[in-house]
């Protein structure tokens, strides 16, 4: 068992390294010198060289990469060009907010999706199926930043029931589990839950429909099993597929929250990323993307391991 997990972990390492390389090379994609933000335009040549040396930009690329990775592993993602603060601290704070939002939307989206998908599969071809499918396809077709805007117009501007900005009273960036903060969570969480809900609905519907078509379900009926028991069998068969889709969707919620966070000024990683982009704060940009991508790699690893544990058909060797 441990051997198996260890092996999966080892297989994930090269991916993680390659991901780091992509993040690192983002700097060199960017037009112009990444240090333009710190170096005054009229700085004398010696100063420029000194600053470059301070940031290690004078050394060969691969040495820069190795030392960058070394520092990153130790939790040092450099210093923000714009604020001068360590990047890691800002990211940590933002990440916890993003996670709060992602968990809330995932909870709404996944439970809604499983419910709708199961209903659609069981009542295939009926109006229930059509309604669930319609909700699902709307969910995946709607630009969520626009949906957020509509919710803001209705619930904040017109009705004035819920706040539209920030994660807490007075635009506070520190999350707490009380009603004052929860009110801020509702709109962004609802906005974000539609895509995972749509996708999970479609996945559950397709998976369950396929299982219902397979011969073993007929065989289960032929054994005289009652409905709840057969449902259990179907659920256990569908679980690995649905789980892996949910894992992926959770990752998308983490990494894709930038648009919604921008709409609601939610102080998460997406919001931070937006700031980094417009201030051309390359270390911060690099850091956020690296952290989010690593989260995603880890999440994939976790899903992979869970899936293997749940599905006896996948060989563990």
């Amino acid at each position, binding site marked *: 068992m441990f051997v198996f997990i260890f*092996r999966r972990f*080892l297989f994930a390492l090269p991916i993680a390294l390659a991901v780091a390389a992509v993040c690192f090379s983002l700097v060199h994609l960017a037009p112009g010198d990444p240090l333009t933000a710190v170096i005054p335009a009229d700085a004398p040549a010696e100063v420029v060289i000194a600053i470059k040396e301070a940031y290690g930009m004078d050394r060969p690329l691969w040495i820069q990469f190795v030392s960058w990775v070394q520092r990153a592993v130790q939790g040092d993602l450099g210093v923000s060009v714009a604020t001068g603060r360590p990047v890691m601290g800002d990211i940590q704070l933002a990440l916890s907010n993003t996670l709060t939002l992602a968990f809330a939307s995932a909870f709404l989206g996944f439970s809604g999706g499983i419910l709708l998908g199961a209903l659609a599969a069981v009542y295939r071809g009926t109006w229930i199926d059509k309604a669930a499918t319609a909700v699902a396809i709307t969910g995946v077709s709607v630009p969520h930043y626009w949906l957020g805007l509509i919710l803001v117009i209705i619930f904040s501007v017109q009705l004035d029931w819920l706040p539209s900005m920030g994660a807490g009273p007075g635009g506070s960036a520190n999350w707490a589990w009380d009603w004052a903060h929860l009110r801020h969570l509702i709109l962004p969480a609802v906005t974000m839950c539609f895509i995972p809900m749509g996708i999970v609905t479609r996945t559950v519907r397709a998976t369950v429909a396929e299982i219902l078509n397979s011969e073993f379900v007929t065989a289960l009926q032929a054994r005289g099993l009652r409905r709840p028991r057969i449902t259990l069998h179907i659920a256990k068969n569908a679980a690995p597929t649905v789980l892996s889709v949910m894992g992926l969707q959770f990752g998308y919620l983490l990494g894709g929250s930038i648009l919604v966070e921008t709409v609601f000024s939610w102080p998460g990683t997406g919001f931070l990323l937006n700031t980094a982009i417009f201030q051309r704060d390359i270390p911060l940009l690099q850091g956020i993307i690296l952290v989010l991508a690593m989260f995603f790699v880890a999440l994939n690893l976790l899903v992979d391991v869970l899936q293997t544990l749940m599905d006896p058909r996948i*060989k563990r*060797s």
Partner: protein
Amino acid sequence: MTSVLRVQDLKKYFPLGKDLFGRPTQVVHAVESVSFDVKKGRTLGIVGESGCGKSTTARLLMHLIEPDEGRILIHGKEYGQIGGRHPLSELRKQMQMVFQDSYASLNPRLTIEDSIAFGPRIHGVKEVQARQMARDLLERVGLNPGVFIRRYPHELSGGQRQRVNIARALAIQPEIVILDEAVSALDKSVQAQVLNLLADLKKELGLTYLFISHDLNVVQYISDDVMVMYLGQVVESGPVEQLYRQSAHPYTRALLNSVPAQTPGTRKDYIVLEGDPPNPIAPPSGCRFHPRCEFARAICSEKTPDTVRVEGEHRAACFRLPQSAGHQHYIALQEVQDDTTH
């Protein structure tokens, strides 16, 4: 009679899975030292259960997969990509193959005409002529070209599709045709039609067949010679009458005996083997049949028996056969005869 096809010590292992360093974790011993001869105009039947390597052998002969070891000679010539050999495209003109799944072996996006004409076009036949060939061949395999030529595979029944596959194989005018379970998926009434067609074509075009099947009755009907395979090895081979009447290998006898009688009133005493055929991933040591063999003794699990002559062209690989055992392990001929006539 001359051999058209001669196979010597063919071997193929398939690696399965990979460990951290890219080495295979398991190896399927698919085909192990298989040798045989096929004479011109005859039909060699290859029988065996799943995992015995009969289909792999067919694909090796066609060079669809490359053998690890061994030689495949057609009229004494060796083909392949290795230097000094004759080019594969020459081989394709001499040997063709019909597959079991009549649907999967036709491209669903092509009409019947395009599928049949594809081979000749590859070999440089002009389009108009290739189309005419396709029509003639369809007629020849008993399908009205006027009705079928523009059809797509899914619009045909299984039997009709298999006729198309035969036409497709014949379009390159081969000398040898490998029929890999070609009639196994068909219903009996349709199977008989296709078997008749195959017999007619063989007579008319002077073809040589390799007929691979798990259906022992059909193999008996169509073959001149038979080769029995078990877990990648040939256990017995010989002329069909002799092999079916007096099988020398315990596996052949059990296999032949396991077929229920087709006529009422002749209930048989079956020789029932224990268990399933083992996995070719880890074949048993020595004689691969020994764990299921009622006559197995110590030597059977230690050494691989040589193939020895039983009578004429009839050969088998079993320690119970007189010459096979070597001097120390001689088993009386008397005993063997008792068993085979029992």
